[in-house]
């Protein structure tokens, strides 16, 4: 089964692992962005905001994905402190749906002011949403606040940025193999992680120490409660264009396993 891994700041290690030759034939990872119309037979690591597009063909694996309790690489850039802006218009500058949802879910509660307008052109905006390496760079002027920090303080749960999805038709060994691959970051060792960081640092112009701190807060094994955290992004964002999706979930083997029991009241 193919396993598609998107390239992003938070999936740096996963993408680096996916570029290596596959260790087994049952899961063949590659870097890219999946398409629900053509990748119905592939496992996909999907950005949480894009989950809705996959619910017809895929199930969610509740134990693998990408989550962080630190910065998330989605930030607000403002000329003054964001909570000093009275009637903010927010520019969603080429950002992902996840970024859009996270900003919607946090802005008013954290900064105390409702957003009066959203724009994709920048017109009239005092707040710009930036994503990826730019979100980690210190601003040349003004302020830059990572949204992940606000989310965590407000909700006490991690930001779940990606979920592992498997085709409805995938069998148990395939699901397990894909799950393991994501949880173990494709077996990427310390040295290869360092190289991946260095490559990114060189491209992005961010100090390696900054990237170490950022990536250290990222985990790829999810807890069952993390699915609720993923749903919470949609619920709090209340974005009419992206309602909370209903999705099928792969049942956990532990939950299915029945322990051997001796019924009460028998003669044994």
């Amino acid at each position: 089964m193919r396993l598609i891994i998107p390239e992003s700041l938070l999936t740096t290690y996963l993408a680096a692992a996916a570029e290596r030759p596959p260790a087994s034939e049952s899961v063949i990872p590659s870097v890219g962005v999946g398409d629900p119309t053509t990748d119905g037979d592939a496992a996909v690591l999907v950005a949480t905001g894009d989950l809705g597009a996959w619910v017809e063909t895929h199930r969610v694996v509740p134990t693998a994905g990408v989550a962080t309790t630190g910065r998330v690489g989605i930030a607000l850039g403002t000329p003054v402190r964001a909570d000093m802006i009275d009637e903010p218009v927010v520019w969603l500058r080429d950002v992902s749906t996840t970024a859009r949802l996270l900003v919607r879910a946090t802005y008013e509660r954290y900064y105390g002011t409702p957003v009066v307008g959203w724009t994709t052109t920048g017109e009239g905006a005092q707040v710009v949403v930036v994503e990826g390496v730019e979100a980690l760079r210190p601003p040349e002027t003004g302020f830059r606040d990572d949204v992940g920090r606000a989310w965590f303080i407000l909700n006490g749960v991690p930001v779940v940025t990606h979920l592992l999805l498997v085709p409805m038709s995938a069998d148990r060994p395939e699901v397990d193999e894909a799950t393991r691959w994501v949880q173990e970051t494709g077996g990427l060792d310390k040295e290869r992680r360092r190289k991946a960081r260095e490559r990114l640092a060189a491209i992005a112009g961010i100090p390696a120490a900054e990237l170490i701190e950022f990536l250290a807060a990222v985990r790829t094994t999810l807890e069952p409660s993390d699915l609720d955290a993923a749903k919470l992004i949609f619920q709090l964002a209340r974005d009419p264009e992206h309602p909370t999706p209903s999705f099928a979930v792969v049942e956990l083997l532990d939950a299915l396993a029945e322990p051997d029991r001796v019924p009460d009241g028998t003669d044994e």
Partner: protein
Amino acid sequence: MIQVGIDTFVAAFPDAAGGMAIGGVEAMRQLLERIELADRGGLDVVGVGEHHRREFLDSAPAVILAAAAARTERLRLTSAVTVLSAADPVRVFESFATLDLISGGRAELVVGRGSFVEAFPLFGLDLHDYDELFTEKLDLLLAIRDNEHVRWTGRFRPPLTGQGVYPRPVQDPLPIWVGVGGTPRSFARAGALGLPLMVAVIGGETHRFAPLVALYREAGRRAGHPPERLTVGLHSLGYVAETTREAVEGFYPGYARTFTAIGKERGSPPVTRAGFDAQSGPTGALLVGSPEEVAAKILRHNDALGGISRVTFQMDTADLPHETLMRSIELLGTRVTPLLR
């Protein structure tokens, strides 16, 4: 109804040059101004700690509270906490009974063993007797509260042979709470004595104290005390600003400095931003945020602990400027308190 208050250690932190950023006179003037505002602004209680350290000017809480009594009309005035282990209960009672007279019946005591230990060598006490000292002195303090003339013998103080202890307070009985940290035995003791409990939660997650609070209530029930007597208060580090962003970013630098310094003395690692963020979250101990977020958090803690009657904000350990603290007190009175009633 949850009463809302502020606690203070009268912090006066050193500046970069090692001197005091503001002098003691100014620190006291500012503190009394904040207490006056709390009184006018609808808060219910002010607590003054007791330390014997350079950076906290609260070694004589009853004196500070007496000054506060003269400038306020409504606020309950309490210690937070009186380090009873290191004090003479007769003198403690006399001071707070006097405060009760000055304030027209608004004095209270929260007594505890103390989380700092400077008082022990200062007053010639042995830290090995940490708990026994408290047990014995609390026994004497309660005896004095309940009886004008006391016959009492103990290990750490000369006996009382029926002498009177004066003045007698306006309130009968003078409210005496037990301040506790995370020691189960302390919770059980307070319950068994039927004394109100003030739980200091300055780190971790508040709901994790629920089993200890249940232990307190169970010990009280077994000792035959009615549930309404077994009240629970919560003391936490806190700071309210107009927005959560302002509160968090404003509180963190001073908090990190103070608790990293305290941690160094106690062998704890430095404060990290990630740890601070976690504790600022919905279930964390820090009551830091916008009025609405903080009120919601207090109500969550109230549910988790099976009902609290009082919450107090320790605000001055983060080295925030006086004007900022004034604004925070105003927000507590005008925007947090109404949400809790």
